[in-house]
């Protein structure tokens, strides 16, 4: 593959595309697929074939369009977005290409949900067919890789990433450029790149959407990283629970190998790169980098003390670069447009955009990409469209089991790494769950503690025993049998776990408890002193519900 050949593929694809005067895009990412979007696409295909307009009207399966709660989504070249489409609607939609839009299915796109977004990571999703490399190449795909390989030195690539201010999107927010630079300076016979696609946080589906909607974007980011740090082998550690993402990744790897963008001497340079998939097997702790490495090596996913950091001694004892899916997906645009361009977006310390999975008790649930620094109020009430059924907002939970619950007093806080940490939560991978008055915060804390207790790998005692004890106390609180002394013990345990656990799972496990104890102390008090649950959730005996 030479740059000229790549340009040729892009031109052919664009010429092919210009043959069609009409286009219908159907979302075939997991959310819409589970609302039968495949049958909608098939019906549209049949309708177009039946009318004999197949040579000028293209029906294409594309990635996620964001508003998952209204799926299946269909967009047309007439500029209209349709929601909740059924197979039977296909004649009307094909009719609408030349005439009036089908008003009963129209989904308004001039609302904040679409207008307030800024798409960098998701720029291709909803526009390209995730199963065709040509479509990605025609959308400027792999041009950043060519630019890096032919015009930039390894040092320049790292400098550009450093200049962009990009920070790890997996949750901790470690500066990406610094990580790359450390790995590139480490000495080893073989270096590795690992893409962490073990998206374990309950309530988060950003990485899954990126992998399903634009898998080549992630591969390109990994290739550039490999070139920059001097690695030649890479693994994508992806959850086995995401069969569609796995299928599309396998397909993407095969296509990239076929056109010579993966393998030996890429673009006629000395750079060669091989990517392989490793399937996770359902262990939350494997999101921690040393546990993830153990799992790739075929062992139980238990973390080990750091240092040495994976950047020095990682996979098979060699220097290893581990980044999250979204981090890799940001690389190509940074190389293409320059680090300075990326650094203009966002806040002083948190640059760029962040993809959030907005879910829970909000009107619009789905995937959104917003610039860093947007306020929580805008997220929940403008983009999210507020709380349904006229209920009251209570809290927003970010960062999954390692994050915290932010009360209404935090609504005007900007969403960036520092502000969230200061408020007792974390950015996390991007799950954002909105809760209203029908949720009991003690119950929520108990839910997350149950999760951490089950997922604790058992290697270090503070986490293994501490999460069990905390869960026991929270259960007592929710059953109205706890005392003030228990509450004090709970606070002590929070402190203990935070400071003595081996890895991030144990260290951050108390966060949901700490944040609810701080912001919703009156709810704990009501459970303990008045023996009642203000939200009416606790105390309900198992089995008697709804």
């Amino acid at each position, binding site marked *: 593959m030479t740059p000229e050949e790549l340009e040729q593929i892009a031109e052919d694809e664009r010429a092919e595309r210009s043959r069609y005067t009409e286009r219908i895009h159907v979302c075939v990412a*997991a*959310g819409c*697929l*589970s*609302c039968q979007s495949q049958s909608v696409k098939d019906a549209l295909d049949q309708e177009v074939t039946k009318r004999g307009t197949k040579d000028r009207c293209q029906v294409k399966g594309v990635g996620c369009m964001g*508003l*998952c*709660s209204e*799926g299946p989504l269909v967009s047309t070249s007439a500029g209209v977005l349709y929601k909740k489409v059924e197979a039977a609607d296909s004649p009307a939609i094909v009719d609408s290409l030349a005439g009036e839009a089908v008003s009963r299915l129209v989904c308004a796109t001039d609302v904040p949900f679409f207008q307030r977004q800024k798409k960098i990571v998701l720029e291709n999703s909803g526009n390209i067919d995730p199963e065709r490399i040509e479509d990605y190449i025609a959308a400027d795909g792999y041009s950043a890789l060519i630019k890096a390989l032919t015009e930039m030195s390894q040092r320049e690539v790292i400098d550009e990433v450093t200049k962009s201010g990009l920070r790890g999107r997996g949750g901790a927010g470690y500066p990406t450029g610094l990580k790359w630079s450390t790995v590139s300076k480490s000495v080893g016979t073989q270096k590795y790149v690992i893409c962490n696609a073990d*998206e*374990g*946080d*309950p*309530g*988060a*589906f950003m990485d*899954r959407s990126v992998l399903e909607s634009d898998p080549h974007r992630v591969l390109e980011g990994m290739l550039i990283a490999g070139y920059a740090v001097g690695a030649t082998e890479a693994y994508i550690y992806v959850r*086995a*629970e*995401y069969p569609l993402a796995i299928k599309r990744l396998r397909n993407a790897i095969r296509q990239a190998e076929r056109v010579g963008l993966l393998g030996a001497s890429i673009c006629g340079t000395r750079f060669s790169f091989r990517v392989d998939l*490793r*399937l*996770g*097997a*359902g*262990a*939350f702790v494997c999101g921690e980098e040393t546990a993830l490495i153990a*799992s*790739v*090596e*075929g*062992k*139980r*996913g238990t973390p080990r003390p750091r240092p040495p950091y994976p950047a020095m001694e990682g996979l*098979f004892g060699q220097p290893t670069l581990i980044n999250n899916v979204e981090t890799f997906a940001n690389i190509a645009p940074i190389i293409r447009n320059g680090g300075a361009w990326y650094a203009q977006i966002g806040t002083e310390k948190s640059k760029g955009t962040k993809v959030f*999975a907005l*879910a*829970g*008790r909000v009107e619009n*649930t*789905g*995937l959104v990409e917003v610039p860093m620094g947007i306020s929580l109020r805008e997220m929940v009430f403008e983009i999210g469209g507020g709380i349904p059924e006229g209920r009251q907002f209570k809290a927003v*939970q970010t960062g*999954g089991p390692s994050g915290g619950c932010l009360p209404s007093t935090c609504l005007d806080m900007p969403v960036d790494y520092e502000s969230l940490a200061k408020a007792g939560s974390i950015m996390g991978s991007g*799950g954002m*769950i909105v*809760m209203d008055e029908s*949720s009991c915060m003690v119950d*929520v804390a108990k*839910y*997350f503690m149950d*999760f951490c207790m089950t*997922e604790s*790998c058992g290697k270090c005692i503070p986490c293994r025993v501490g999460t069990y004890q905390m869960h026991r106390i929270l259960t007592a609180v929710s059953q109205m049998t706890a005392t003030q002394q228990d509450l004090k013990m709970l606070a002590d345990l929070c402190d203990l776990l935070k400071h003595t656990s081996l890895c991030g799972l144990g260290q951050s496990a108390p966060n949901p408890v700490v944040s609810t104890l701080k912001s919703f102390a009156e709810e704990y008090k009501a459970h303990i002193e008045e023996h009642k649950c203000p939200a009416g959730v606790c105390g309900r005996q*198992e*089995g008697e*519900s*709804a």
Partner: protein
Amino acid sequence: MASYVAKPVPPNQDKRWKLVDATIRRQGQQSRGLIETLHTVQEVFGYLDGQALRYVAMSLRVPLSRAYGVATFYHFFTLKPAGEHTCVICMGTACYIKGAPQLLDAVQKDLGIHPGETTSDKKVSLLTARCLGSCGLAPAVVYDQEVAGKVSTAAVREHLRKWTHA
């Protein structure tokens, strides 16, 4: 120096062992391929039993204890055969907030089993998932690989009735 070790013989004549062997070969018969191999075994046989674990451990030259340790560490692996149908209830945060516990209660009561168990007539297995990533459609349930969104207690009961009375 690794001494010559005879290649272990599959436990029986089942053709599916060829697929397992292919994965073992692709991993270069190295211990690092343990998880990948167990994935293949579970994919073709549905679960991991004692003889499969023993065969994989011998083929990859790892102690049986390590193979067993890995198989029991990860939630995805199951050592018991599943029922004819499986019902997975998502317990992710979004689903939890939107009523997954009530769904689970109803199903447990109807089937008389807990998550991870199979009904005595081997018809239905009940499982819970940490998160399916279908949070936009909460609460979500997977009936035999098919994801259903915004599920109500009545809907899940109705679906299970079809299975149990089929």
